[in-house]
């Protein structure tokens, strides 16, 4: 009766005959698939493509900043480069990468469902994402846009003469992809949990994706309307944000940050979910203080809606509203601190192994802590005056988003790579690239804290020569970082064909996703699972394996 949970020995493991990867063949079977796992792969390919574009722009930016005069590219080219880098990386890489790739693949499996609640809408949201991406590519190829990713009015509406409309429409369309993904995940988590999978048996991964999805649903429409207004204002000349007509340009920033600040948490909460899984698995221990970690995800999601004006402390908002927003920002930092301490405590009395995902998790904990603490500096009103709009802010959010989120995505990708493809990545290369990424990252972005405190403004094509040494260091670090990204890209592709066959549960982890074959069947579970154990129940797993041995032997 329990045939579907056999855990084949990793040495003798073979790829299953039938899986979601070989159930159908041909391009059409991919482009018209309703299978959440295949859609996740589609997202992985498209987001990687956009990451390459955004990364190339970043490389050119860093090369240009090698010399203070900005000799490599012209000023407007530079402005287009950082706009492309920002727009692509935020809206077309960071926002979709974790929810749409890891979330799509794992949420149904982790809760014991056969698919997400609305598979057709899931595919539709990928197409919307691609359509939005096409707008963006059109804008980039036909001359670019130089508004920065923040589209500050009235610069974006009345003063620049580039492809702002296409860029804004692209984000608008891709926004619907986020909304639909969010709706899909919430309904899936609410309605499709397997029998016995109660809320407090859910893996913490699900909790953080749940909070993320609510941010998608509630925040994305607001940026949609803000960008629609920009398009209309450029197109027809209505004056909602035009100070000359009585409009208030700051209103745009309120609307924009009402989305974009919660969106920052979209870019970190899923990473936190990955951390909980990886650290628990490689410490062989349940996450320390499950409830606290679960509710801190929800708290971050809720608080994230009440902090947006901390981007505008110096913009002439009322001093008293600045007080409120600063206080709220301090409060939102607390759940993040709780999480960091709980993860560290999870390792206490564990039995720790240091595989690649765990190394990426260490890098996450370190870099995210630095990113978080500098966030406190920026949330402190008086300090923010000096630090905001300088490279200090640039370094801060790269520590959170690249150091935090991208490390987490790398951890997750390596962790679930055997589940997604059925094959292992090369372990030693993985560890090496994790180390290179960590070193390269710190070399790139730590000097930016210093140069930021010295006062170097962000988005500067040329800068005073006194800042050169630190900028050279940063560019040197960026080249190390580039190697750190290229290596996994190459060896992960290599492993698709030549990697060791992984077997169902190479990490010997207790989650539901590890109890099925790798790669999974299209319908995930042969029979609907009944869950009678909590998440991270390693004792249950040990008993399970023992009883297996008994039945076989």
């Amino acid at each position, binding site marked *: 009766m329990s045939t579907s949970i056999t855990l084949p020995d990793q040495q003798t493991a073979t790829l299953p005959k039938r899986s979601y990867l070989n159930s159908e063949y041909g391009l059409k079977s991919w482009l018209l698939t309703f299978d959440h796992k295949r859609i996740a792969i589609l997202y992985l390919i498209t987001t990687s493509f956009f990451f390459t574009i955004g990364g190339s722009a970043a490389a050119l930016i860093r090369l240009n900043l090698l010399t203070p005069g900005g000799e490599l590219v012209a000023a407007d080219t530079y402005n287009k480069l950082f706009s492309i880098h920002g727009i692509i990386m935020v809206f077309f890489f960071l926002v979709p990468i974790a929810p749409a790739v890891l979330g799509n693949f794992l949420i149904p499996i982790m809760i014991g469902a056969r698919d997400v609640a609305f598979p057709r809408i899931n595919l539709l949201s990928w197409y919307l994402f691609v359509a939005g991406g096409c707008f963006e590519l059109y804008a980039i190829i036909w001359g670019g846009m130089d508004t920065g990713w923040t589209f500050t009015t009235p610069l974006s509406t009345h003063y620049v003469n580039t492809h702002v409309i296409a860029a804004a429409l692209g984000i608008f369309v891709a926004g619907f992809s986020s909304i639909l993904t969010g709706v899909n995940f919430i309904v899936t988590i609410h309605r499709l949990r397997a029998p016995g999978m109660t809320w407090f048996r859910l893996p913490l991964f699900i909790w953080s994706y749940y909070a993320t999805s609510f941010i998608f649903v509630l925040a994305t429409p607001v940026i949609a309307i803000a960008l629609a207004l920009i398009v209309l204002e450029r197109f027809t000349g209505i004056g909602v944000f035009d100070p000359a007509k009585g409009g208030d340009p700051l209103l745009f920033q309120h609307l924009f940050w009402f989305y974009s600040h919660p969106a920052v948490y979209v870019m970190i909460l899923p990473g936190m979910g990955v951390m909980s899984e990886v650290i628990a698995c490689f410490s062989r221990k349940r996450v320390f203080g499950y409830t606290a970690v679960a509710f801190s995800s929800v708290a971050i999601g809720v608080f994230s809606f009440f902090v947006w004006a901390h981007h505008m402390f110096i913009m002439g908002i009322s001093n008293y509203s600045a007080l409120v927003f600063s206080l709220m920002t301090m409060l939102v930092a607390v759940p993040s601190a709780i999480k960091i301490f709980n993860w560290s405590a999870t390792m206490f009395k564990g039995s*720790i192994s240091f595989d690649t995902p765990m190394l990426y998790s260490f890098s996450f904990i370190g870099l995210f802590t630095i990113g978080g603490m500098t966030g406190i500096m920026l949330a402190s009103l008086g300090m923010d005056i000096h630090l905001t709009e300088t490279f200090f802010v640039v370094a801060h959010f790269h520590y959170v988003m690249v150091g935090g989120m991208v490390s987490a995505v790398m951890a997750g990708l390596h962790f679930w790579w055997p589940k997604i493809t059925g094959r292992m990545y090369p372990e030693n290369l993985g560890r090496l690239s994790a180390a290179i990424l960590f070193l390269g990252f710190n070399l790139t972005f730590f000097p930016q804290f210093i140069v930021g405190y010295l006062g170097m403004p962000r988005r500067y094509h040329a800068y005073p020569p006194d800042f050169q040494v630190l900028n050279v260091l940063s560019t040197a670090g960026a080249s190390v970082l580039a190697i750190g990204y290229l290596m996994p890209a190459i060896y992960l592709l290599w492993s698709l064909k030549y990697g060791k066959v992984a077997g169902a549960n190479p990490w010997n982890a207790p989650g539901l996703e590890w109890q099925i074959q790798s790669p999974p069947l299209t319908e995930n579970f042969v029979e609907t699972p009944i869950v009678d154990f909590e998440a991270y129940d390693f004792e249950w797993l040990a008993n399970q394996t023992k009883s297996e041995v008994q039945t076989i032997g």
Partner: protein
Amino acid sequence: MHYFISPVLWQFLSKWLSQFPLFPPEASSIAPYADAFFFFLMLISIVGTGIVMVMVITFSIMYRKEKNPEATQIEGSMLLETTWTLIPLALFLICFVWGALLYFRIYTPPTNAMNIYIVGKQWMWKAEHPGGQHEIDALHVPEGRPIALTMISQDVFHSFSIPAFRVKREVIPGRYTTVWFTPTKPGTYHLFCTQYCGTLHSQMIGWVTVMTPGDYQAWLNGSTSGTSLAQNGERLFAALGCNACHSGNATARGPNLAGAYGSRVQLANGSYETMDDAFLRDSILNPSMHVAAGYAPIMPTYQGQVSEEGLIDLVEYIKGLKTNDRVQQTLNTSLVQTSTPAGGQNAPQSAAARSAKAPSHTGTVNQ
């Protein structure tokens, strides 16, 4: 040495060793306070990160698989979790209070501050001293005196940043913003625009020169343009015909402006507002929204007729206006000059006729 390594690298290394600032100069009275706070924040960051790193590294060594093959399952600990919720919370709240105090200090100019006006535009900074000295991409200030900047943008958002003073404020179209500082150390310091403002954003930079009071006086005398802002404002006040209504006479159609700056004004809708720079500027551009109680809403808008510099001149003039003697004097002279050849005899009446004609498209109001 440099024969063996590439010249570029040699240049880089020599630079590294000779000139490599790691910390900006402290050149204003607020800078030491900002830095003290920064060091506190850095301290808690280092301690916080340190604790996490110590935990991770110690556990990695103590409980590695080889040493501890069997994990001990622990649910959690209320006591520990409460501790690491409350201690960070307390620290963050300290940061909040300290930061708020600093913020209010930086954004609340003292009343005795010397006022300098800043106009930002793509891509330059224009500074206007009360004495009429104009500067572009530069600012000369005396040491040891509080200086308040009243700033406005002509086009897009800019941001006025002097890292050595640890102050910065957004410069916004259509609205005055202020920031203040007391320079403490003579020297030249960077001035940046930190809000992305278009193609040549990175060229919107300049130098702030802090001078000893004596040098500053010499500089003021050497770069004067002849007329002060208030004098320019007075001329504009007459040229635009403001004095026709704001004459200070008992029967005047506009409120008296002499000595009014800083007072509380009751508006027609019953609310009160303080007559400050922003109020004056907005009243000139959007008079309908600032009708003083007891007066008819007849003032026309001057939107599009006065530049930001002109508005600054007017504001500076009205600010310093203590009596109406000269207003009435200029009123008479300007009317003699502008009155028609046929009817120069009854000046005040023709002025009233002219001002009533100005808002012609509003039709007949207030008969």
